[in-house]
């Protein structure tokens, strides 16, 4: 027996298997592609709407609204002022429009991740079986190279915003789910027992006790999700999402060093703004929730 060569499946069988799976998937795409596109169309409209709002409004108004929003969330003049300065510099170097597109994309991705991720996290916290089922899926989502799941997404949706959104959300949603689960599981059992003893329903327990006490942890998850969606902008630009990722991609292909660095730094600037803002908000939430004494 030959111990050097691995006893692999025959070439012919392997090819047949790949062709069967690919064929089946292609059939699925033909049959359901339009339906799926219709389902995701509202997301595309939402993203386009936010993009247009940011790009077509007077820049000074956009800047003012962003600054006000950042201050409201962080309650920190330092962060708000720093953000304004960073955005002014980014705009001065000709990256205003791309920056706005990237902000719009991160906002929509985060929104989707939160809307889907928090309920999944809640279900995981409430059932150990659900927890055991979802955890490996999350592990897979975070370790599978994103190019692999881009293939079916692109096959179904072609190039454009929606496949970009889907790819980013798949990559960035795990932290929200994990930390929602963790936050709820960490709620002190005696507080939960008190809620029970006073006759709370499960929904009341969730609304009045578990979610508020888990909120700082959930915020940490949202913060990570935002950072991860920003990390995906270059990958997303490969399948047609416009924004700061595209010039970076172009710079790689054509070896424009300065262009790459500038756009890269703009991404970093957005990352820092969003990170500081959400962290400040998380700290503010935490002020009272640390258990008494």
């Amino acid at each position: 027996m030959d111990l050097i060569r691995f006893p692999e499946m025959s070439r012919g069988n392997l090819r047949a298997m790949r062709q069967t799976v690919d064929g089946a998937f292609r059939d699925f795409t033909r049959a359901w592609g339009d339906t799926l596109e219709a389902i995701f169309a509202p997301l595309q409209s939402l993203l386009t709407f936010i993009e247009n709002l940011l790009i077509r409004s007077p820049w000074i108004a956009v800047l003012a609204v962003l600054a006000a929003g950042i201050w409201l969330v962080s309650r920190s003049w330092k962060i708000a002022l720093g953000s304004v300065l960073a955005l002014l510099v980014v705009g001065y170097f000709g990256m205003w429009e791309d920056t706005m597109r990237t902000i719009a994309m991160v906002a929509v991705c985060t929104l989707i991740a939160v809307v889907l991720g928090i309920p999944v996290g809640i279900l995981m916290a409430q059932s150990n079986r659900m927890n055991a089922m979802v955890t490996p899926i999350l592990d897979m989502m975070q370790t599978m190279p994103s190019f692999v799941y881009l293939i079916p997404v692109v096959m179904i949706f072609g190039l454009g915003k929606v496949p970009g959104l889907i790819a980013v959300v798949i990559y960035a949603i795990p932290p929200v789910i994990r930390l929602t689960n963790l936050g709820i599981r960490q709620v002190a059992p005696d507080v939960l027992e008190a809620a029970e003893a006073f006759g709370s329903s499960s929904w009341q327990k969730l609304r009045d006790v578990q979610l508020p006490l888990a909120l700082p942890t959930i915020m940490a998850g949202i913060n990570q999700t935002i950072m991860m969606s920003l990390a995906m902008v270059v990958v997303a630009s490969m399948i047609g999402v416009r924004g700061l990722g595209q010039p970076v991609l172009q710079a790689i292909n054509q070896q424009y060093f300065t262009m790459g660095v500038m756009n890269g730094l703009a991404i970093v600037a957005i990352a820092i703004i969003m990170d500081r803002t959400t962290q400040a908000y998380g700290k503010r939430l935490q002020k009272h929730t640390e258990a008494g004494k």
Partner: protein
Amino acid sequence: MNKAGTHDIEIRDLYKIFGPEAGQHVEAVKAGLTKAELNDRHNHVLGLQDINLTIPHGRITVIMGLSGSGKSTLIRHINGLIQPTAGQVLYDGMDVVTMTPTQLRDFRRQKTAMVFQKFALLPHRTVLRNVAYGLDIRGMAEAEERARHWIDRVGLQGYEDYYPRQLSGGMQQRVGLARALANDAEILLMDEAFSALDPLIRMDMQSILLELQQELRKTIIFITHDLDEALRLGDKIAILRDGAMEQVGNGQEIVLRPANAYIAEFVREVNRGRIIEARTIATPATQGRELPDFTVKARSKLDLVARRMTKAGMSEAQVRDGEVLVGTIDLPAILEAMVNPADAASDD
């Protein structure tokens, strides 16, 4: 706006075994399998065994025992936080054990309120919102007004907008007490409610509770591992050991007639003069003999009686319950009653 307790709680033949196959071992336990044996042979924990207890309405019933004796387990059966392996918890014609989830929720909302050892306040809510919590759950419109009333009653006016972690332990437990009282339930469950507090603050809280109870007459189940607290608060005292009820009675009965050596050891250090009442050791007045011309009240404790008599220079007194003559009492008898019989015996 306060509901006094109107019905006794009857705990009948209650058994609680912790473990996955609890139901299979209950017969063996009834037949005499001990806690240690159950643990060694079947790896199940015997939480409670053969508990029968009447908790009288409008009174404070204290459940006492060392740590791990099953006190918390027992009190949680009354509001259904723990399901027994066998037995009944009867209240006003209902059995808490067999209630549906909805019935149980309504029972908890309307009939019971609980105070916890570690306060268990909601850290993200202010004092006001914490006290209103039980009422919020029931969707009560006047929640805030009632919460303010009870915040005043426990002496926390001015602290409505503080968060729990800004308050000392004693103040936090006042919030816990106000939260329970605001619920306006007949049954008040207090699981080592004062155990986490410093001695002075604990005495304070005991006074507040006694004072409120004078007026409210709730059915209170109070858990403690501290005999002095039990004797001070309890109209009725039940002593648990390893999940079994060792003795039930009032303070005097337990101090004067401990049911077994374990309890005798428990009550050894008690200041008996503060527990025993004059009427307990009064002897019937002898016919025809002249009554001493000093009077003490039948329910006065011996230490007070002794102090009054020595101050007045009297060695004998008549004991009266209102107008009724109970008997007479003299200083030697008082002193004898105040000395622990076990100590007296060892000095012979």
